[in-house]
């Protein structure tokens, strides 16, 4: 009898914890603001982002996450090419691209921390991201 009661109690605790987790996961998405026909999301800096067109494509406001602000990362640019001689034995991971008589390599570790690099491959404007 005692064992049955214990099992029921454990089952209750598990179900309660599961329901709690479900509730938290459902409430962690980004809340959308509706103003007439328009839909906005607000990031952590207080900036409102109009996503009305994105929603019309099927984007769900709930799946926009973090919203740490447009200045949280500094994009890389032409000023960030390494000037000193390169270590040709380095085994660092890079993304490489060739074209228009040029070859570029972008350190993946560097892209991780800046997210984008805006450069030119010859005369062609390109963006590297990871």
């Amino acid at each position, binding site marked *: 009898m005692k064992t049955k009661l214990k099992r029921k109690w454990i089952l209750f605790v598990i179900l309660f914890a599961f329901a709690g987790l479900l509730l938290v996961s459902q409430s962690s998405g980004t809340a959308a603001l509706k103003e007439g026909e328009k839909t906005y999301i607000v*990031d*952590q*800096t207080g900036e409102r*982002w*109009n*996503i*009305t*067109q*994105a929603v019309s*494509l099927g*984007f769900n406001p709930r*799946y*926009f*996450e*973090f*919203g740490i*602000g*447009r200045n*949280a*990362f500094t*994009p*890389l*640019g032409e000023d*960030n*090419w*390494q000037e000193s001689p*390169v*270590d*040709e*034995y*380095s*085994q*660092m*991971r*890079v*993304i*490489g*691209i*060739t074209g228009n008589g*040029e*070859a*570029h*390599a*972008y*350190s*993946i*570790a*560097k892209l991780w921390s800046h*997210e*984008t*690099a*805006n*450069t030119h*491959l010859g005369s*062609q*404007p*390109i*963006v*590297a*991201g990871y």
Partner: protein
Amino acid sequence: MYSREIDGQALTLAPSGWTYRRTFVLYDKETGTLWYPDRGSLMGIQGKHFKRRLPMLESTDTKFNKWVKENPATKLMK
């Protein structure tokens, strides 16, 4: 790696600070359009360039020592 030229204008792409389904949402500093990876391109999902596409360019994920052997005159960003 993507082209960032549209209608003869070069765009400057930066992270918006948002992700959508764990993927970064970018914006361009010139028009504020939001861009999201979609079927081999970045697609404008909000703003002036809505539904326009910036094509993906062929690139290689490799180690630098291999890359520099094949491309000794390479530029490096690290």
